[in-house]
């Protein structure tokens, strides 16, 4: 199923790789290179999922995540945090701020694609029961 994906990362090579992967999987991809750009992009055209780097100039991934979760109309947007910082405290912080997934760099490309898919399947299931 085709989804709108926003990639937010300041490492051009990583952006290139993610862009290629997601486009190949049939998604519509947009790119932002820092937190502010990301929020502006979401405002323009809200995506289904945001791949969010944590260590970014101007606004960190944590900040962007927090801002997004403050807006009820963006509630449905899935947030996947991508970070080279993999310490437990950092993972917990990301999830606590409202990220749906926290992926540590370097990651397996196939797994990442599967996990993104999985996010939507999960939410499609009826809750409760």
């Amino acid at each position, binding site marked *: 199923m085709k989804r709108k994906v926003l990639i937010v990362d300041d490492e051009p090579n990583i952006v*290139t*790789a993610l862009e290629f992967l997601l486009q190949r999987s049939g998604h519509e991809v947009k790119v932002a290179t820092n937190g502010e750009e990301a929020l502006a992009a979401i405002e323009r055209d809200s995506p289904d999922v945001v791949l969010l780097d944590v260590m970014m100039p101007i606004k960190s991934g944590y900040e962007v995540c927090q801002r997004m979760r403050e807006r009820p109309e963006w509630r449905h947007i899935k947030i996947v945090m991508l970070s080279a*910082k*993999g310490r437990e405290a950092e993972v917990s912080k990301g999830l606590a701020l409202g990220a749906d997934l926290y992926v540590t760099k*370097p990651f397996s490309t196939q797994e990442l694609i599967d996990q993104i898919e999985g996010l939507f399947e999960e939410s499609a299931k009826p809750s409760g029961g």
Partner: protein
Amino acid sequence: MLQGWVIVVTSFAYLGLLFAIAYYADSRADRGRSVIASPYIYSLSLAVYATAWTFYGSVGRAAVDGVGFLPIYLGPTLMIALWWIVMRKILRISKQNRITSLADFVASRYGKSALLGGVVTIIAVIGIVPYISLQLKAVSSSFIILVQYPEIIMPAKVGALPVLQDTALWVALILAIFTVLFGTRHLYSAEHHEGMVAAIAFESLVKLLAFLAVGVFVTFGIYNGFGDVFARAADEPKLAAMLTPLEGVAGSYASWIWLTILSMLAIMFLPRQFQVTVIENVDEKHLHKAIWLFPLYMLAINIFVLPIAFGGRLHFPDGMVDADTFVLTLPMAERQELLALLVFIGGLSAATGMVIVETIALSTMVCNDLVMPVLLRQRRLRLAERRDLTGLLLGIRRGAIVLILLLGYLYFRLAGEAYALVSIGLISFAAVAQFAPAVLGGIFWKGATRRGALAGLCTGFGVWFYTLLLPALARSDWLPRSLLEHGPFGNELLKPLELFGLAGLDQITHAMLWSMIANVGVYVVVSLLGTPSAEEHRQASLFVDVFRREAGGARFWRGTASVPDLYNLLARFLGPEGADTAFAEYARARGRHWPDAELAADAELVHFAETQLAGAIGAASARIMVAAVAKEEALTLNEVREILDEASQVVVYSHKLEQKSRELEAATAELRAANEALKELDRLKDDFISTVTHELRTPLTSIRAFSEILLADPDVELAQRKKFLGIITRETERLTRLINQVLDLAKIESGRAEWHVSRVELREVISDTLAGMSQVFKENNLEVEARLPERISPVNADIDRLIQVLLNLLSNAVKFCEPGRGRIEVTLSEADGYARIDVRDNGPGISPEEQRVIFDKFRQAGDTLTNKPPGTGLGLHISRQIVEHFGGRMWVASVPGKGACFSFTLPLEPARAEARAAA
């Protein structure tokens, strides 16, 4: 209405009240609920200083001398200010050594000398007897005067009475009974006479109230306040002179000073003052309050002295009434029966208080320091074999009390009529002042010896006897008057009142001057001439250093003893009950149970037994008794000195220990600070590792992602495939560079880096580096200019490291320059012994905030994706470390938009630099 029986009944009622108070206090004490454990009771008991002499005599003296009565009360007020130094020490010594009296104190200090204790006792008894007679005289005179009411007739006019009708005798006997009953209930003299102290404190209140009552009556009843009394006195020519105290009248400067000194010593060394201040003291802290409460009492009881004296002189202008009786006769003349009776009771209380305490103190001294040492040495009495000596001890004390009071009465009959109250009192003061050198010297001067104290005391007392007591007897016609007028055997130089021709002083000043010179002089000289015995040395140390060492007399004993012997010894003097209590206490302090547990008859137990015994019979007697049952090996003087040295060593050690513990605290603080610094370092290291990890993972992410893409999809277009492989290659290079630099940094920071220092020509290094990078410059189409001077001194450095720095700066410049328009300038210069290299570019520049942190680890200029340069963020940091390692400096100057200039300096080779400077 004031018939004899009324006065007698009132007096007995008063004494009965005293009995009741004393009995109540004693029974409370027996139940362990002391009434005297209060600083107020303690201070009031000190006021036993104010006797009938104060009560009647102050007014008598004031009526003659004006304010000349004051020194007797100024002295104690001054002295008590020094008590914190002197009395606190005496208190501590007395508690530790279970001192039972002043004589015991002196004997104990000078090697537990029985002889010295005996001498002090004899001096005290002889010296105090006139004082006791004074009290008897006051009570009987006031009784005789009061009985004549409403007539005012002086006792002298009544005529001498037969002994058995003499009031004074009966007073003496009644007081003896009271004292025996309350002063000798317990044998144990180091314990407190609680009943007595309570009664004394009550008496101090009564006499103060009575005196204030008369004062108020005279000042405000007869006259209209202080102003009125003094105004009328000033109108009377005879009285006006007394208002200017230091001119003309007997109270000259010298006599003021000597009287003040005399009473300063009296408040310390009168046996009754020593008794209430030291022996009866239950808590050293009571001194705090007494130091201001006692002077307050003195002030209160003196406020009305002058008004009463002037009132008396104005009221009885003809001199028919003895001034010593004004306190009583003024109310009588005004027909104030009840007030007169109250005054009589007040005087009675002042007198009885003094007599009771004084005789108890003296009887303890007589028993412990005079009679017992003599009896114990009499082998034919076989005292040492008697099982229980408590009865004997009490008997001696009771006998002594009766005897001393009868002696007082005898003196009253023999000499009492010749002197005013004050003069009798001063004679006693001068006698006890003789104790001052031995006691004060004893607690501050270790060099004072037994012989010195003995000689000083005897000489001083001899002079006192000759200049004060002899004239008193001569004036009462018991000795020929010619003795006073012409000296013994007609030798004018030896006239008792003008010794060695010293004339023009009053009798007391004269006596004090000579006796003190003799006493102190002989005491000091004899002490200095002789050497103290081992025992004296030990006691001197225990007394003088009382605040510096623990009570540790046991260390000085060596010998053999048996527990049953020691027990029996204690039982003989304290009774079996007392001995049991003492031994149980001793055992309990050592975690044992008496009598089940075996106690070792060691030095400690012997010392304990001796101290217990000393509390009952005094130090000197206790020594004799313990020596009899314990076989003691005498310590030599050197051994005692060694023990004392050991003790002072301990003091030194403890000082050192304190010092060490302070150092330890400081070290702990330093350690704590170091630990904090380490923690901070640890946190920094943690951050560093976290950052390094992040920096390593980022290129790894790209490498893995593109590898997987290429692996999973063989159909990627060629152009893209090339692009991806290019990224992989560059990211691998970046990774390698990063790893190398991290390792490099780690080496430099830990000091493990290898430096190959040699003389380096900077011109060559710069030229070579630029040449090596020419390809890069060409690729980026950059203009590069090098400005190198023709000659410059070499520097001492590692050439490879310098190239590393230059490469780093140049590639940074390249990174930030816009291809095609970029321009890089490298300048070499020399100034102040330093070579300086500038690398300037025309890139975007660096903001001030970035300039501050750009040399930190993992900090890179450039914020956004577009201008983020490839690099590790370690290059500048490492470069700066290298430059600083060689003693140089590195910094950056930049205006945003106008390029940046990185500069560093390196010190020139010193010899060459100097040579150039000289040239």
